[in-house]
């Protein structure tokens, strides 16, 4: 299923006119530092959710001293409500792989991994075939396009663990361990796969780079807001007539998105997946951007008929099960939050205890080891505060 609206970046017709192979050709003609500079100038920020400036990440990895470096494409897309990477891998795998090659060229890495979530295994054969084709066309392997640069891509499958989308847990998983995230510092750009400098980027981040290289950083900065340049793929699901993947410019308001996907009677929108924030109707004029509502791509729409407590419970169950279980705040904290929800459900939860749990949630945000535990209290806090009336008036 393609991207639903008219797309600026991921538009196959346009791309065919430009011939994506030329992008790679152009990139390999630049010097690695110019390439990084171009990405930096574009203001591209990571599309996986955390929004770290991609150019900076590459620069750090490029500055790290090591005989080996690695590029990892994070295709673990596990955030509930996110499926845009699936569409990209299905239809724009060329751009993804080119982006990885460019990254490898920029930081002088010769090996790339795609960490594909196990649930997307059915895409594997197609991707492998495409890699073979790239080898044949000398777009991969030794001396790519006679540039003297060698690069190879290996696809590794996940095995069903949401936390493996977290970059350091992903690296642990690549190394054959349990997907338990690592202490930071050191960061993967210094000490990543097998202890070597490693760049981990989202599928969409990689897929965007070739376009930036082709059309120039300046073109890219014309779209978006001050701190969020370019466009973003969003995956819309829930109560609307036209769910699917859309490409929208940063700065778009929730209201506009709802119109775009033909949603009616909307009560709340969950931005950023289970670990994101729940936005009530009154705030639908807020904008999608790193400054305001940041998202890895997940937009879930709930209409007036939905029970917010039920939704919250579903999220908390997700975290209780998907926490890697190594650190205290996340492992036990999520259980306590879920128990709190269940208590409310049963009608025997004091409001003061909910307040206590919200405080606990704040500590989890501060003290958890990785992004999972740091963001899992988000839905609890935002739903319990924004929908307190609804939740408690019924029970």
């Amino acid at each position, binding site marked *: *299923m393609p991207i639903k609206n008219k797309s600026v970046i991921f538009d196959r017709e346009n791309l065919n006119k430009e011939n994506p192979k030329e992008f790679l050709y152009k990139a390999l003609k630049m010097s690695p530092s110019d390439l990084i500079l171009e990405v930096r100038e574009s203001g591209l920020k990571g599309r996986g959710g955390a929004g770290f400036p991609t150019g900076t990440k590459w620069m750090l990895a490029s500055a790290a001293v090591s005989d080996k470096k690695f590029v990892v494409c994070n295709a673990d*897309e*596990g*955030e*509930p*409500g*996110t*499926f845009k*990477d*699936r569409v990209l891998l299905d239809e724009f795998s060329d751009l993804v792989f080119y982006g990885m090659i460019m990254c490898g060229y920029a930081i002088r890495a010769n090996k790339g991994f795609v960490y594909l*979530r*196990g*649930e*997307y*295994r*059915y895409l594997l054969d197609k991707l492998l075939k495409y890699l073979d084709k790239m080898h044949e066309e000398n777009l991969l392997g030794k001396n790519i396009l006679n540039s003297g640069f060698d690069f190879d891509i290996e696809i*590794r*499958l*996940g*095995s*069903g*663990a*949401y936390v493996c989308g977290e970059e350091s847990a992903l690296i642990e*998983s*690549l*190394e*054959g*361990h*349990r*997907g338990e995230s690592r202490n930071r510092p050191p960061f993967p750009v210094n000490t990543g796969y*097998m202890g070597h400098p490693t760049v981990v980027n989202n599928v969409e981040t990689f897929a965007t780079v070739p376009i930036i290289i082709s059309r120039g950083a300046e073109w890219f900065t014309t779209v978006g807001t001050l701190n969020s340049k370019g466009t973003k793929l969003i*995956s*819309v*699901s*829930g*109560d609307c007539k036209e*769910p*699917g*993947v859309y490409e929208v410019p940063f700065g778009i308001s929730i209201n506009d998105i709802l119109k775009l996907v033909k949603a009616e009677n909307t009560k709340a929108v*969950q931005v950023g997946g*289970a670990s994101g924030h729940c936005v009530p109707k009154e705030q639908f004029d807020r904008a999608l951007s790193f400054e305001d509502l940041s998202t890895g791509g997940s937009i*879930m729409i*709930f209409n007036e008929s*939905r029970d917010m407590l039920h*939704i919250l419970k*579903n*999220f908390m169950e*997700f975290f209780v*099960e*998907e926490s*890697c279980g190594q650190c205290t705040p996340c492992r036990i904290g999520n259980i306590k939050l879920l128990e709190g929800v269940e208590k409310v459900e049963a009608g025997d939860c004091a409001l003061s205890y909910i307040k206590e749990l919200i405080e606990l949630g704040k500590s989890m945000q501060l003290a958890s080891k990785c992004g999972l535990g740091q963001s899992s209290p988000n839905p609890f806090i935002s739903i319990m505060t924004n929908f307190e009336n609804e939740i408690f008036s019924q029970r």
Partner: protein
Amino acid sequence: MIEIKDNILTQEISELIGKYGNGREALLPILQQIQAKHGYVSEFAQQEIANALDIHPVEVYGVITFYSFLGNKKKGRHIIRLCRTISCDLAGKDAIIRTLERELGIKFGETTKDEKFSLEFINCMGMCDQGPAMMINEQVFTQLTPHKIVDILKNFR
């Protein structure tokens, strides 16, 4: 002391080692292959893999129990995994649960007596726009309805 005689599994594992190497990073690919072929990674297989990679069996066990697609117990030949996350939930997951349980005569978490089907839940599998969705082995089925379930199951019986 238990003497290890070469058997098919040992041979299979050494072939996989040949393919993926004997470093720790080969562990997951090897486990995935064994899982795909046998439906689970047996106690013996775990020890053989540990031996080949020079790690401890309990580490292999720790890895297997971490990932939901790996298992150490024999399950049905077809594993049905229904998405239970919110978008599929809102799209009518509950009706599908009831249909699956009635059609197969088992509850979620169980395996049919003839060891053909196992029912499991899975967390968001990236088909939220086409929910409710489920996987049977590696195949994905979307926009499920009770009638569709009956047709799909027919193909696997």
